[in-house]
């Protein structure tokens, strides 16, 4: 950038680099701190150089780097007819670097209304979908009694135990039966 670098700039010229840097949210850190998701081969010197030349961002003297290993997981099946692509593997690790800024930076506030992103409708439709899948799936018998009925049963049981209601066969309704037990 136009401003003088506050560190010794390297001699190697790099043309058309092809990688992405992501600015991470750090609510627990002070506003003079910023964290980035960087490529795994990135070094602290690279980050300092990059931030100076691309974003004109002067940084404090120390950068902290942390590599997070991913957990082992199965592959995604794009084609359900070929299950062999669901191999167990460990995806690539992610590297984050935390940097001390010369001037503080606070992230803009979260949006108040999520209507443009349709978050509420998404949630309702997905919940309904999940419920339908559970009803049709292997745990269907666990879902046989819906929650509202369970609550009502609980209330009835409590009333009977407390003596507020008296138990009557058939719930007091006149039921058409075989008549074997009627007097």
């Amino acid at each position: 950038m136009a401003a003088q670098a506050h560190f010794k700039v390297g001699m190697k010229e790099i043309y058309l680099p092809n990688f992405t840097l992501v600015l991470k949210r750090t609510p627990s850190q002070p506003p003079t701190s910023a964290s980035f998701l960087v490529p795994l081969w990135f070094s602290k010197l690279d980050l300092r150089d990059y931030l100076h030349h691309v974003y004109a961002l002067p940084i404090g003297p120390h950068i902290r780097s942390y590599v997070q290993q991913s957990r082992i997981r199965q592959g995604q099946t794009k084609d359900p007819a070929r299950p062999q692509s669901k191999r167990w593997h460990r995806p690539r690790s992610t590297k984050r670097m935390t940097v001390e800024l010369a001037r503080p930076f606070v992230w803009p506030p979260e949006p108040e209304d999520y209507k443009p992103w349709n978050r509420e409708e998404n949630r309702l439709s997905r919940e309904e979908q999940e419920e339908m899948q559970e009803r049709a799936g292997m745990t269907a018998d666990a879902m046989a009694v819906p929650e509202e009925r369970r609550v009502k049963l609980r209330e009835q049981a409590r009333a009977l135990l407390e003596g507020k209601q008296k138990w009557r066969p058939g719930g007091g309704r006149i039921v058409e039966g075989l008549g074997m037990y009627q007097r």
Partner: protein
Amino acid sequence: MPPHKMHCTSASLLKTTLLSSSTRASALPPSFLLPAFTQTSPFSSTPSHNARKDHNRNRGVSALRHTGIGKNQRLSVRVSALPQPVVDPARRSAVKVDPDHGLWAFFPKERTRLSTPEELNMRGRGWTIQELRAKDWDDLHKLWWTCVKERNRIATGEVERKRLGGRFGMYGEFEAGERLKEVKGTMSGVRFVLTERWYAWENARVQGMEDEEVDLYADVEKGERAYVPREEREDVS
């Protein structure tokens, strides 16, 4: 009375002490106990060294281990005079952010945290190769870096959108993907044009090396001609 199961000598000793304490006027201990009161030299013959004065005031004090301030530590400020941090975020003073801070480039133009899908859609198409062929070296590199910053911006927005969407997600993935496609198309176009230019230059250079009419070592600024047709050459008869 001493218990029956006690050893006879200890029982008899205890009896004598008890009886003696009740009958004698002066309570003198028996003779076998006298060394306990008169002996002042230590049992061990090893010379004992008194502990040296430790002049290290910071011994045992560690910030990493959270030991706190030591008893003999002398600080420039009294602990009671230290300022207390404001724990409640609502009571903290607002931090003023510079309008020309470098990190604003990671956020959309409107300086909101997250672009709506509509805002992401408000874009043109990427550069075509025909348009890029007309551009010079500096312009192409400036365009590349603009694309890099836009890609960082989209990636930051995607991470934030996934977080705010929670378990069920939010709209915006498709729009961000489309925007990214245009950016990546432009970047690949820039790379293509520069590669094409290089191959043209390389082919011309190789041909020029073999060509008699072309002088690759001519200094054009001084007036020497790089291309001299065969008819005009003086050394060929």
